[in-house]
């Protein structure tokens, strides 16, 4: 369990995503200012085989927070990493802490 300081909270994009390098892994960070939440999932889209999820649109489907892949639009649950279109596919998710003006990500995938 290692909490790694990745960026300032003002580096996050409200209602959108950025990608951070966390201990050699690409992690997509999504910031929802309304709820004060930051979600972190791996940046790799297993369908399109490219590191692009941080550039997807976020929203909710039936109450679940999701990101839609910018390539072929599959949805991934931001809390669990499970793909809504194909539940056998799951991508890693990470824990995030907002510590004052800093954002910290736990480098160990939590699912």
């Amino acid at each position, binding site marked *: 369990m290692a909490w790694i300081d*990745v*960026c300032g909270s003002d*580096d996050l*994009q*409200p*209602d*959108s995503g*950025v*990608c*951070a*390098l966390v201990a050699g*892994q*690409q992690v997509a*960070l999504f910031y*929802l200012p*309304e709820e004060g939440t930051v979600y972190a999932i*791996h940046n*790799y889209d*297993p369908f*399109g*085989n*490219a*590191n*692009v999820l941080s*550039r*997807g*649109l*976020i*929203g*909710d*489907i*039936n*109450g679940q*927070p*999701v990101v*839609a892949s*910018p*390539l072929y*639009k599959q949805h991934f649950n931001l809390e669990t990493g499970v793909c809504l279109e194909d539940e056998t596919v*799951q*991508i*890693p998710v990470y824990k995030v802490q907002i510590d004052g003006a800093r954002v910290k990500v736990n480098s160990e*995938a939590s*699912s």
Partner: protein
Amino acid sequence: MKQTLVVIGNGMVGQNFLAGLAASSAKENYDIVTFCEEPRAAYDRVHLSEFFTGKTAADLSLVEDGFFTANGITIHLGDRAATIDRELKTVTSAKGITVSYDKLVLATGSYPFVPPVPGHDRPQCLVYRTIEDLEAMQAAAKTGKIGTVVGGGLLGLEAAKALRDLGLQTHIVEFAPRLMAVQVDEAGGVMLRRKIEALGVTVHTGKNTSLITDGETCVNKMCFADGEELETDVVLFSAGIRPRDDIARGCGLEVGQRGGIVIDNQCKTSDPAIYAIGECALWNGMIYGLVAPGYAMARTVVADLNGEAASFNGADMSTKLKLMGVDVASIGDAHAKTQGAMVYTYQNGASEVYKRLVVSQDKKQLLGAVLVGDASGYGTLLQYCLNGIELPENPDALILPHRSDESVGLGPDALPAAAQICSCYDVSKGVVCAAVEAGCTTVNALKAETKAGTGCGGCVPLLKSVLNSELAKQGYEVNTDLCEHFPYTRQDLYNLIRVEEIKTFAELLEKHGKGRGCEVCKPTVGSILASHWNEYILKTEHLGLQDTNDTFLANMQKDGTYSVVPRITGGEIRPDMLIALGQVGKKYNLYTKITGGQRVDLFGARVDQLPAIWKELIDAGFESGHAYGKSLRTVKSCVGSTWCRYGVDDSVGLAIALENRYKGLRSPHKIKFAVSGCTRECAEAQGKDVGVIATENGWNLYVCGNGGMKPRHADLFATGLDKATLIKYIDRFLSFYVRTADRLQRTSVWMENMEGGLDYLKSVVIDDKLGLCGQLEQQMQYVIDTYQCEWKTTIEDDSKLKRFRHFINSDQPDDNVVFVEERGQIRPAVAGDERKHFTLVEVA
């Protein structure tokens, strides 16, 4: 041995008969010959007026390609049958061809009645029946200023509208004290007159023309019995029709006192070997001047020839006027002539609506109706009348305005399967339902499959409601909500944003939606906000709404890299600019390709390279090409009159002007234009959303074409335009599209789904039927005035540039992006290429 069947007349009914016969088994028994007096085979007279709005003779044709050959039918075009010898059973034509017959069908139609007023045959005294008549009108309108229609019936009104659209000051002269005297009662006539006058047509009723003579300021002068006079260039007679029974008289067949070939219930004339159908036939003392009864007669004869029992028992004469903006309809016994009939009327002078219901004594059956100003109830009322459906307890509810939510319309479920939906083509509800069952899910598909709605078009609303009700029954959800977050259509959202001046997604969601939004509603709203307010799309409050490509102002490719497309207006580029482009491509090692829209696409740029690439492009004089947006893409052009030997006008110059005018406009889907310098059409303008072609008389405008997955030939929208008018029409067209289309709906589909289609679109954009044109132009001007190159804004704002890095906390690039070389350029590596291996963290 085969017998010979001869059909005289290849008009609407004659052709309908041939088509019916060809599809039946009786076809095998006959050699079929037809005489067609006109120079072309049957065409759609009902939609004849559309000839003036761009339809060609070919568009109006009722004959499928190769129909005659495929069915072994001999047609003598441009040859009139002159005589019939009933003893020898032969027909001889004007050109001298003689054919023997076993069965003969007369489908000679009718001719326009021209009152024998002295001077009726003067120059520019015309009638309205054939394509040649329309060509004569067009020619006369070129030199004349004033046109007058004699006769204020259904057809006269249509003719008056045509004269007005040809640019003439138009008058209607009617003998009776009101317009459409046959269909409409007096009070309705008053309302109708106001409507017609509002179209800019002057109406003179109770006028008896006594002489037509030399005019002083015009070609002709009409003198009336009351001493008044009217100067006019064109005189168009539309004073009724007379059956063409001369050939029948010539061979001694029985004809009516006032004309018409007498037929029985099997449509047989007084000679059992000869039938008569259509407007030349007199049944029970009646001539039917509408196409549907003629088709019913044609069906009767086909059945009779097949040895099936069939009988023509009269037909319904309900009608609805086809004029845009003038709603008039008449159903059944409009004048309450039935014994004991009772009448309800509703009149609203302020909104110019007049409605009248004629019901039976026991108030249970609808006998007739007159609707002026609001004919929306036509379909429902006609169904009550035709199917004898019992009326609601208070029949007047059917014509009173709805003040509460209760619906008095006749739901499609209330109709029996045998109910006739389309009277022109006799299509029953049962047939429509079967077609839906077989997979038709749109009105257009139903039209193609069943022909319903392709005649006068009056039944289209009813057809649509039957369709929706059937789809709902089959479990299709006819849900038009954009997504789970907004119970609205895109058009609704546009109006909310416009009317309530909403400027952000958050505000719209709070007022009208729920949840957080999704990848359907966010880009849709982002696009509407951009179309309407035209703010910088990467502003913090808009950034999260943008679709894949818009978020980084570039087109994402399959490996997550981007392609870059600077604007090259009209496809014109100076050599030094081309060199600059080449240098950027070389420096960043980008794959370079020419696009279909006459520009250059640079592929393989990593997100972190985009700002540097754009800085160099902007310094070299380029601006964003918006290739990433649902917005105006390109205006393709041919080289035009500047260089081309055939060029009529400067297509490149116009293309550049148009592209600069509309660049940056965000829309429901991408928009493509093209401009050709002459009708050789090298720029393929007729495959574009907006296409312009130069002609000797000015620019011709085409709209709603499409290439891509579902190609569609564009429709001719307006001809002979000067540049200012052209731009005005395009402004309105685009604004209207942006306002009313569905999300991701190209102009082609938008128009095809629009009720009233091309004609409606023209009435909105050209005639300003909705009174919206001012607003539409203003909106477009606003967008033009607030244009910015999004890339210029972006590279000048450091806070925006922060996002253009692969990692927010490192300058490393994405190590998963790997290229290999092919044909001397880069391409993304694929499985099997030797590439650096990338490991994804194992999923626990």
